[in-house]
């Protein structure tokens, strides 16, 4: 590893974070859609949905948190794409810096921005009546899963950020990911879904992650769901990381 990796990453992280503090709208727009979904599902559809849980907002929040991350990472692709377009990327690449720090700065910025958005969404959920008896350990476990999920999706976002030809192309990849929670246990229990849909819903990553977070919030024993969830996150993270770095190396040499 280059001896300047940590220092260069810190400098570039400072730059990206400054971008966020100067246009906080990216955090607000990231949080708005999940909040709108939450309002819609709790106050419009929620009354008609049978979840077996006493409060629908309690049931819904884990899925909403994942949607928040899925919409937040599109800004990572967007910011990376702008750097590529603007010429500053080439300046960095022609300088004596650790080259991987350019990507890591964007990834860590994504983590910070998404964590802020998540806090905003949780605060709104609390206003809407979300309650949990989870202790510090439970919250830490939830935070750990969300951080892992954010990192996994962020490394996916790096790929279109590096390869996209237009701004729209850079962020369009996130729509299917935002949609994925709808075909999972995030909004409704999977039992009522017809066979093939149910099979998909129960075996895609979102369901296990949502179930694990839900169990942590309701202080239920987490069972195997948390291991499935962690395996999904780690698997996606490793694959996306390798593929993103391959794309990056191809781009810069």
């Amino acid at each position, binding site marked *: 590893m280059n001896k300047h990796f940590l220092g260069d990453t810190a400098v570039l992280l400072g730059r990206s974070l400054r971008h966020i503090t100067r246009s906080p709208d990216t955090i607000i727009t990231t949080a708005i859609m999940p909040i709108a979904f939450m309002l819609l599902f709790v106050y419009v559809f929620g009354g008609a949905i049978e979840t077996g849980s006493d409060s629908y907002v309690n049931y819904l929040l884990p899925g909403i948190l994942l949607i928040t991350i899925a919409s937040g990472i599109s800004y990572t692709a967007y910011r990376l794409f702008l750097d590529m377009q603007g*010429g500053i990327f080439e300046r960095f690449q*022609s300088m004596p810096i650790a080259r991987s720090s350019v990507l890591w700065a964007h990834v860590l910025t994504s983590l910070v921005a998404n964590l802020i958005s998540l806090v905003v969404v949780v605060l709104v959920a609390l206003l809407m009546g979300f309650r949990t008896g989870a202790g510090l350990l439970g919250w830490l476990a939830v935070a750990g899963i969300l951080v892992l999920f954010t990192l996994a999706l962020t490394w996916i976002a790096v790929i279109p950020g590096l390869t996209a030809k237009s701004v729209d192309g850079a962020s369009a990849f996130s729509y299917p990911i935002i949609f994925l929670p709808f075909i999972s246990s995030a909004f409704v229990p999977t039992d009522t879904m017809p066979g093939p849909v149910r099979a998909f819903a129960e075996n895609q990553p979102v369901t296990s992650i949502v179930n694990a977070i839900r169990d942590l919030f309701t202080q239920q024993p987490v069972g195997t769901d948390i291991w499935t969830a962690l395996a999904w996150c780690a698997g996606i993270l490793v694959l996306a990381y390798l593929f993103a770095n391959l794309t990056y190396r191809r781009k810069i040499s």
Partner: protein
Amino acid sequence: MLAAMSIPPTPDQVEQAVIHVHGLEKSFKQLKVLRGVDIDVARGTIFALLGSNGAGKTTVVKILSTLLKADAGTARVNGFDVAAQAADVRESISLTGQFAAVDEILTGRENLVLVARLRHLRNPGAVADDLLRRFSLTQAGTRRVATYSGGMRRRLDIAMSLIGNPPVIFLDEPTTGLDPEARIEVWQAVKELAKGGTTVLLTTQYLDEAEHLADRIAILHEGRIIVNGTLNELKQLLPPAEVEYVEKQPTLEDVFLTLVGARTDKEQR
């Protein structure tokens, strides 16, 4: 007079060349952009790479600044091979690309501090303030770059390239898209650089820019250097100016004056 005359580079000078390019080739898919480019640039000089759009000037610069890999040939910058010693090359150079590589959201000063930090300098703030002063940007230093004019942006861009005093600077079409006033500002900055001993390789499609700035000029055409020399040498490639007699067709004015004749002649006197 002798000093002003052009002297072709001696083998000794070629050895000392801070930029040495030999037989450089590069293709993009089927398109052969460079078909064997040879360049030598002596230390402390301004070298202009001239060519029309698509001639491959940017490709040469990108290979020299380690952003692209050549298919064949060798290129050494400041004694380091661009392929095998890319990290050392990056320590020795600065690139000012075709598009101003500045961060629009940061202020001018923050841009300079950013680059100074990435070059691992001791005192980034002082470096930034000094450059702001040298490039008449002190007033604008605290404003976001998004509010800058094209000329100011380019000046900041070049100022960012000077940080850490790299011995070699690449300027890829530094004045494209600038108004005449901003062009002159950039020219001044480039001249000062060379005065300080920096080697500058610039690409341009403006002939007057090369004429104005460069110690040596090379013309890149269809992937090869077709001429390379000082301005005087290049001028000598064409036959010297000579006096020619050209048959002149009468204008309507001549016809009119002839027809109206002497009377008008007299009145005019």
